[in-house]
């Protein structure tokens, strides 16, 4: 894709991230940067630690070791007298405000309408005035094509519509970075396109994002960089045309060969 400024401070810097669940080490030293406006796709086999990686970035899981900086600010810790001190829960919560997250299973709040889902956190967490938030939320729902569903409850929406509301909900916090964890994996194939189109439009508008996906067509079309993960490490990283078309590692090639079928399908849909 086209050039992006690479010389500035990265929005996200991950340095030697480790995560262990009991005896199993799920992330074994992951490091990379994401710059403003960059779209990074993460691919890899099931269990390779992709979700864990995203969840460590916003501290839904606490990393075992390593540091994460979001816009220059260290996540979860503070340096005090030359030592790292864990942040209090409220401080950590305020850090998460800068990171939007979209889940595979949407996780819309079931007792709130689409609009209420979007305005909840800006009002309750950022304490922004309701009228302003509602204006922003209405614009965001319109942006994901759901202005007419503002007063529907999640149970009255299709999966694709729920996921688009979830995207609007995350955007309403005006995050510096968006994380998508397999946003279309729970959707019927014919609905995948409508969600990918919304994410692609965000990418074109310059939203900084990390997208874990199995949609290779989308990764090739939209991302600036692709990371291939396996067994908790980054095996290969580079422009989509290198990693997805001419991978240099055997493991990448094997993985891509296994999921050839989805490439053709998603490729057809991701193209504009």
């Amino acid at each position, binding site marked *: 894709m086209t050039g992006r400024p690479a010389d500035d401070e990265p929005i996200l810097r991950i340095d030697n991230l480790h995560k262990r669940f009991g005896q199993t080490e799920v992330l074994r030293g992951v490091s990379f940067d994401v710059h403003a406006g960059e779209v990074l796709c993460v691919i890899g086999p099931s269990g390779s630690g992709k979700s864990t990686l995203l969840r460590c970035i916003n501290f839904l899981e606490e990393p075992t070791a390593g540091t994460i900086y979001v816009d220059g600010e260290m996540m979860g810790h503070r340096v005090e007298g030359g030592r790292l001190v864990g942040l209090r829960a409220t401080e950590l919560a305020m850090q*998460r405000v800068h990171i939007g997250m979209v*889940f595979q299973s949407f996780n819309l*709040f079931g007792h709130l309408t689409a609009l209420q889902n979007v305005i909840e956190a800006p009002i309750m967490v950022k304490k922004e005035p309701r009228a302003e938030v509602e204006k922003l939320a209405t614009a965001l729902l319109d942006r994901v094509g759901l202005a007419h569903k503002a007063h529907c409850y999640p149970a009255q929406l*299709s999966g694709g519509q729920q996921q688009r509301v979830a995207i609007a909900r995350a955007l309403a916090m005006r995050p510096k970075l968006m994380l998508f964890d397999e946003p279309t994996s729970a959707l019927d194939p*014919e609905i995948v396109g409508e969600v990918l189109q919304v994410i692609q*439009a*965000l990418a074109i508008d310059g939203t900084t994002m990390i997208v874990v996906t199995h949609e290779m067509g989308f990764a090739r079309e939209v991302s600036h960089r692709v990371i291939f993960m396996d067994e908790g490490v980054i095996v290969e990283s580079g422009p989509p045309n290198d990693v997805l078309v001419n991978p240099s590692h055997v493991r990448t090639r094997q993985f891509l060969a296994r999921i050839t079928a989805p490439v053709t399908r998603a490729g057809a849909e991701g193209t504009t």
Partner: protein
Amino acid sequence: MTAEPSAARLPGANALERPVGRRQWRLPGRGDLPRLVRKPARWTLLAVVLVLLAMLGHLLATSSSLQWGVVGHWFVNGGILAGLVRTLYLTALAMTIGIVGGTVLALMRLSKSAVLSLAATAYIWFFRGTPLLVQILFWYNIAAFVPRISIGVPFGPTLISGSTNALVTTLVAATLGLGLNEAAYMSEIVRAGIMSVDARQTEAATALGMTKRLAFRRIVFPQAMRFIIPPTGNQTISMLKGTSLVSVISLPELLYSVQLVYARTFQTIPLLVVACLWYLVVTTVLSVGQHFVERHFGRGESRKRSASFMERMRARQFDQILS
């Protein structure tokens, strides 16, 4: 990030929307009758039920022991109505203690602290494991066990002190007996309600920057209410009837009030009918209230528009008669 609608508004996005079907509640019409004629068993059953109802009606109308005039007289008697009012506020007080205490106990049981969790478990074990009637008698006689109640430093100086008998009046004993017992049952209801809310709801709230407390208050608890309200309604109705137990400690609630009268007039049956009628009136009102509260907290639960109360009642009555 700008919020203006932009190129992101893609054509085709709307084309994928499916209209959400609205299910109509259909009331039985004329066309349904021929189907019934072909079911003689149903008609026989209906006839049997009608005959039994007629017999019961005849018994009620003509029974010499029932004395409807007496029932009518005492139904609106001042002393009985005072008893009814006591029953109502005893129910309200006990349920308040039950709901608040139950919620606290549920949060204690769900907390990470082993001490809190164990304390709550012990409480529930005790209050569910002993008869309510015994508990009420225990509170009524607490003075024999703890003659004085003092507030101060444990094993140290006393700040305030009073005789237990003055502090724990009959009403206090009744309220404590019913309320503390109720808290044990309510805690299980609240706990089950909280646990039925998907953990991913909390996770989504956390990712949006909410603290645990805020996520619980705004996201988890409102959704738990949908599971908590129906059994709480049932508990309230049980409590209303359960207050009659405190007649054993001579608290003149509805039952004890009628007992006081028939002990004097020997019109036992008519006065018990008076009590039953009042209990029925209040439970009916409570059931209707429960329906509306449930509908409020059930919002967002299903794809269907919820049918109005009358629509449902009519549909239900017809179903019951015919099936």
